[in-house]
């Protein structure tokens, strides 16, 4: 896949959750331009075109949405969110926090940092599938991205 055509950046360390998410999006043809990274460090490299992504993609070609897990090894979701929202080049990128827990003490912090949405992944698969489907439709088809 051409890194410049990525529309959905999925940042998720749990491969089961990632597979379920991708599988669900594929069902509605929304995963064609999905790129999956497994930790915050890789996410930052992708977004800011550093490390393995320096020279392979340009920041002008930004994804339509970043689906960001919070609990991740190395660099966690909060730090990734903070970096994205404090940089004028990436501040307008829509970031949707996907987390397993509604007990999350970070929910307010995420909104303070400028998260565009905060979704608790339901345990019930039907509801999880519905949530992912809604997310895909909303951010890829309904939402107008900043030019």
């Amino acid at each position: 896949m051409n890194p410049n055509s990525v529309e959905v950046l999925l940042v998720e360390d749990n491969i089961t959750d990632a597979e379920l998410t991708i599988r669900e999006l594929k069902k509605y043809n929304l995963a064609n331009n999905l790129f999956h990274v497994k930790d915050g460090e890789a996410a930052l490299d992708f977004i800011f075109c550093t490390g393995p992504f320096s020279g392979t993609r340009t920041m002008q070609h930004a994804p339509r949405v970043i689906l960001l897990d919070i609990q991740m090894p190395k660099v966690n979701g909060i730090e990734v969110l903070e970096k994205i929202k404090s940089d004028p080049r990436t501040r307008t990128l829509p970031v949707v926090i996907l987390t397993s827990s509604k007990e999350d003490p970070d929910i307010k912090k995420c909104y303070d940092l400028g998260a565009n949405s905060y979704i608790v992944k339901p345990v019930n698969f039907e509801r999880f599938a519905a949530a992912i489907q809604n997310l895909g439709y909303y951010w890829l088809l309904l939402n107008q991205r900043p030019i």
Partner: protein
Amino acid sequence: MENLSTIGKIIAANSTAALAFDNEGDAKEILAALKAEPHIVAAGLYDRNGRLFSRYPSNSGPDAFPTGPGPAGYQFMHAHLEGFQPVVAEKRQLGTLYLKSDLGAIYERFRVYGFLVALVVILSFLSAWLLSKILQKNISQPILALAETAKVVSDQKDYSVRAIKTGNDEVGLLTDAFNYMLAQIQEQNRTLSNFTQDLEQRVRRRTAQWEVANKELEAFSYSISHDLRAPLRGVIGFVTILEDDYSSKLDDEAKRITGIIKNNALKMGQLIDDLLAFSRMGRQEIEKTNIPTLAMVDAVIRQIVPGNKDGNIQWVIGEIPDIKGDINAIRQVWINLISNAVKYSANKEAPQIEIGSFGRDAETVFFVKDNGVGFDEKYLNKLFKVFQRLHSADEFEGTGVGLAIVEKIISKHGGKVWAEGTKNQGARFYFSFPDERSEFSKQDTLNR
């Protein structure tokens, strides 16, 4: 005047011989005796012919005397008292004695009396003053000093101050008692402040421990909620994929088994969520506001029994006063109690649920009654315990957390929960709320 008349009589009596024998020297000597009476300023003896025979003081001129004797008696003349006294011997008048007394003498006497009175008064005042001085020194001053000390003590709250003892009298005794009292207070204050400090330290230590424990519990809850739910989502997700995408390759037994796996995983998810809700309720601080209870109950009923699947439940809503409490927590109480009533009366032919309240000694008791399956009262003690159920999951779904949450919320509001029930006759759940309530809202009966 009497004094003068007496003197006159004495001189007159003594003068009879001098006049009878016309002895001028004797007369002079007799009159000279008047020196002893300083107020007699002049005296004269007239002979029977009215001639001034002798005079006193001897150096005074004849002009100072009346020209002749006047009638007997004394009278005031020109600030003097003067008069005549006949000198009589054997009923024969030998001559007349003239006496002149200076009123100054009387004034002098008055002055002496006045002076004496003044002296006595001054002396009395003086002695009174001296006495009061002495008394003040011995009684008032120590008492005033004591009062001053007491004022200092009460103003500055300084119980280390001591009154100075001035003697061994009653006041000294009072001072001792006062000082002893101060010493006692000081000692008690010290004990009290040590105790308070100790207590504060303990409270601080406990609070710190509690905060650490609470943080740990929060982290624990987060970890349970996050780490237990994620794999569960995987299990349910992939079993669902198996069911959806591979149903043609699964026989009936395989489908039954995937169904069991999914149901158990879902139940575990529900347990995790309920457990977390229960633990969250325990940790949460309640925030009291005015709750329009009737409107809340109404909304909860609508939420639990949406209009289209109304069923045939008959609702009887009695008097429900507003209360002060945590709005979300109290809503949860109503949700749990009303949904229980709906759930456990669902199999009845004519289910009836009654919601109301009554007041009794400084508390309001709310109740939810149903005519459902009820329960055996011998299990009453298990009713409000977490994860304790009186029905199997086949009969009625549930995790056994709802009533435990109700109990926790109500006890946090200072109230109590209890229940009555009869098997197959229905159940009555009560919770009391200490009175802090606003006015009763209107009685209302709703039939849905």
